[in-house]
């Protein structure tokens, strides 16, 4: 049992190193004369760092990578069958599936927590949970969904399809890619044990001073998120290098599919900003375990520092979530509209524009936090400027649909819903960017509705679009299209009824992050809860359809959609190293309905005259 052997190696080494770290810390504390040798947060933090190293090394990093540092021979294994998904695989397709499976489970768990929250909020008063239990559920729902939004599309579809779409045989750094994934299970473990270690009470934002003073499992949470950030940064680095240097010959920047462009911009964002979250939580950790005073106003510290550093990441993070979603939407709309993608260059410019602007808008989250007044104006203007590049993406999508021969398959329906929902989320965002309205709406259900419209309506719908679009390619099997469309209409209606209604209590001033609310709000909250249960039940259709198709579905063709891009020109699922013959890109990916347009790619050795070289003169085949 290869999988068992690898997993037990990882777990064994992880636990061993964890206990060594804990013990070592206790010995050192004794040596330095601390009164107590055991302090949970302190010892566990050091033990965790050791344990994390032991875990990734035991999983296979030692054999394929670590031995190299000591001048020893490394070895890499290629394992067939289902067991490869439980080993240290460097194949980008395996890693993509690992990410997708992990985060689908996390998504369903976090969705269940949302259902529990709506259960409690169905009427005023406390029925099922006490306030700290509610806070724990709320915090876990928030952070797990943030993790899904950040990593499911980027890690899952990005890993699987970016190398395929650019005609490469793998990512630029396959071992780093495996490391990025295997850092995720400790994150999930640390987050999921928090309810048994004292719970959480600071939401997903972990503002000090509460996050410093709280006696809950905040320390575990900090460690998990710093690890998650590390994984995110490493995979961002990998994507940047892959997209620049691994493109097949002829895959010029102006022939790059939209999903790859969006992933390129996302990767830069992850590489540039994720440190903000890590540094912010490092400061919280130091305040908690080392008694430092970053956020202790008594000794000259400042809690606002946390909000600046935190939002320096966490605003760009919403673009890390939404840009791949918009990329998927444009990609699918481009393939199902029967005509070339409209305003390709403007859409690319829009992605780059968002990349540029995303770093100078973070303080719009802090209008009511007590930042100086002179910062309000600039951050208001910069935030609203973002609507210009976003508008260009809408322009491209609508221009492509306009007069097109739409094929309304399940992925296309989801992609169209992304545009619809995100428009709603974008328009309501204006009220939160404007200081006067924001002061009224801050921390109300209006923010909850707006945020869910952008991320669920934008990115999660795009995730399902991608799931239905690429499922036949990943599994080699086809799902039931009627059930998929049923899932779409169920989710679309359920989602819109739930969250459109939620704007109303928000405008009335109902606070978010609360377990209880005034009895006057009973009716509308009961309605929202009912609608959300309907939305939640719809995912059973999705799970049933996918599980059935995975095992018993009919075999899928290599190119069931008749799409032009490279991933559909190889078998379903693709062979190891993706293409039997090296691909050569000869035309634009979205030239549908043009009789004279050359094919997007052809295969075989020998470059046609005038074909530009791929990235770095290499890659491919």
């Amino acid at each position, binding site marked *: 049992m*290869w999988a068992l052997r690898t997993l037990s190696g990882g777990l064994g080494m992880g636990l061993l190193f964890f206990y060594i770290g804990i013990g070592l810390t206790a010995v050192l504390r004794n040596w330095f004369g601390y009164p107590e040798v055991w302090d949970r947060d302190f010892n566990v933090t050091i033990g965790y760092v050791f344990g994390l190293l032991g875990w990734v090394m035991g999983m296979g990093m030692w054999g394929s990578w670590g031995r190299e*540092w*000591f*001048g020893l021979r*490394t*070895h*890499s*294994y*290629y*394992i*067939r*069958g*289902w*067991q490869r998904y439980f080993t240290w695989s*460097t194949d980008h397709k395996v890693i993509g599936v690992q990410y997708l499976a992990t985060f689908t489970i996390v998504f369903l768990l976090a969705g269940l927590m949302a259902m529990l929250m709506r259960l409690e909020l169905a009427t005023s008063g406390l029925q099922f949970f006490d306030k700290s239990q509610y806070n724990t559920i709320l915090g876990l729902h928030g952070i797990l969904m943030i993790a899904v939004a950040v990593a499911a599309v980027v890690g899952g579809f990005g890993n699987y399809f970016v190398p395929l779409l650019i005609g490469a*045989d*793998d990512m*630029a*750094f*396959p071992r*780093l890619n495996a490391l990025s994934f295997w850092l995720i299970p400790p994150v999930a473990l640390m987050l999921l044990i928090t309810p048994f270690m004292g719970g959480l009470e600071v939401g997903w934002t972990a503002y000090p001073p509460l996050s410093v003073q709280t006696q809950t499992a905040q320390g575990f949470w900090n460690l998990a998120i710093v690890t998650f950030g590390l994984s995110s*940064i490493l995979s961002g*680095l*990998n994507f*940047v*290098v892959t997209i*620049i*240097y691994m493109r097949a010959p002829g895959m010029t920047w102006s022939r790059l599919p939209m999903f790859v462009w969006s992933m390129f911009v996302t990767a830069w964002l992850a*590489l*540039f*900003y994720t*440190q*903000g979250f*890590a*540094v912010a939580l490092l*400061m919280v950790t*130091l305040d908690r375990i*080392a*008694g*430092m*005073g*970053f956020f*202790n106003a008594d*000794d*000259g*510290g*400042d809690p606002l*520092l946390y909000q*600046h*550093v935190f939002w*320096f990441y966490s605003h760009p993070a919403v673009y890390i979530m939404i840009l791949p979603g918009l990329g998927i939407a444009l990609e699918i709309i481009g393939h199902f509209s029967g005509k070339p993608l409209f305003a390709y260059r403007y859409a690319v410019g829009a992605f780059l524009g968002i990349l540029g602007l995303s770093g100078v808008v973070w303080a719009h989250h802090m209008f009511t936090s007590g930042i100086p007044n002179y910062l309000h104006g600039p951050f208001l203007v910069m935030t609203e400027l973002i609507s210009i590049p976003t508008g260009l993406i809408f322009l491209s999508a609508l221009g492509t649909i306009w007069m097109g021969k739409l094929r309304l398959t399940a992925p296309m329906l989801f992609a169209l819903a992304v545009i619809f929902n995100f428009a709603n989320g974008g328009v309501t965002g204006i009220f939160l960017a404007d200081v006067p309205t924001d002061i009224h709406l801050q921390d109300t259900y209006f923010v909850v509705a707006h945020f869910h419209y952008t991320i669920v309506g934008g990115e999660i719908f795009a995730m399902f679009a991608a799931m239905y679009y690429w499922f036949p390619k990943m599994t080699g099997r086809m799902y039931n299209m009627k059930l998929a469309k049923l899932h779409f209409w169920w989710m679309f209606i359920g989602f819109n009824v739930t969250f459109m209604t939620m704007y109303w209590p928000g405008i009335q001033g109902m606070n978010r992050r609360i377990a209880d609310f005034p009895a006057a709000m009973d009716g509308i909250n009961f309605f929202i809860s009912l609608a959300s249960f309907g939305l939640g039940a719809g995912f059973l259709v999705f799970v049933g359809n996918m599980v059935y198709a995975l095992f018993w579905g009919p075999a899928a063709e290599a190119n069931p959609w008749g799409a032009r891009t490279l991933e559909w020109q190889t078998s379903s699922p693709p062979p*190891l190293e993706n293409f039997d013959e090296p691909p050569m890109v000869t035309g634009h990916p979205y030239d549908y309905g043009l009789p004279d347009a050359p094919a997007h790619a052809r295969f075989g050795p020998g470059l046609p005259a005038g074909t530009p070289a791929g990235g*770095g*003169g*290499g*890659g491919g085949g």
Partner: protein
Amino acid sequence: MAVAATAAAHAHGHAHNRLQLNRVGLWLFFFSESIVFGLLLTSRFFLMGVDREHVDQQLGLIITIILLLSSVTAFTAETAIEQDRRRLASWMLLATILLGVIFTVGVGFEWSIAEFNRKEVFGTVFFTMTGIHATHVVTGVIMLFLVWVQLKRGKFSSRDHFAVSGTVMYWHFVDVVWVFYYPALYLIGNVVTPGQ
């Protein structure tokens, strides 16, 4: 279910651009790390403006000179291996390791004689910034040592020495960080004493 495990059966990447990819990856890693250091540097000014507390100027100057000197020895080690002069490269790597260790000991001594504690704000930023930087120096020393061991085993040559170049580049990067941290912690602004 079939399990096929063969040593090095599946060689990834292509030899012709592997070195280039590694270089770019390393630079992006520095770029990413510089954000961490930059955020801490910005936090220092956010919390304290240009104020600072008293620190030992002589000690600060000495450890700075030692760290800058170690960049010279590291650079010499890299050029030596590029010309296949392994003996020189080996000595220069050892000298870099020694200077790195002296720097770390110097930071530790500075910590022990500091006139502020970690609860007050200058102590917080001072210990965090020097601590994170010293962690990187220690990591660099370990990497240099591993590279030195492999050099002694005859692994590197003028054609194949990316491990040496990469480690030396990392060492320069850590040095450059100190070039920003030293003035921010030791030189800039007004000396204040807490409680006045």
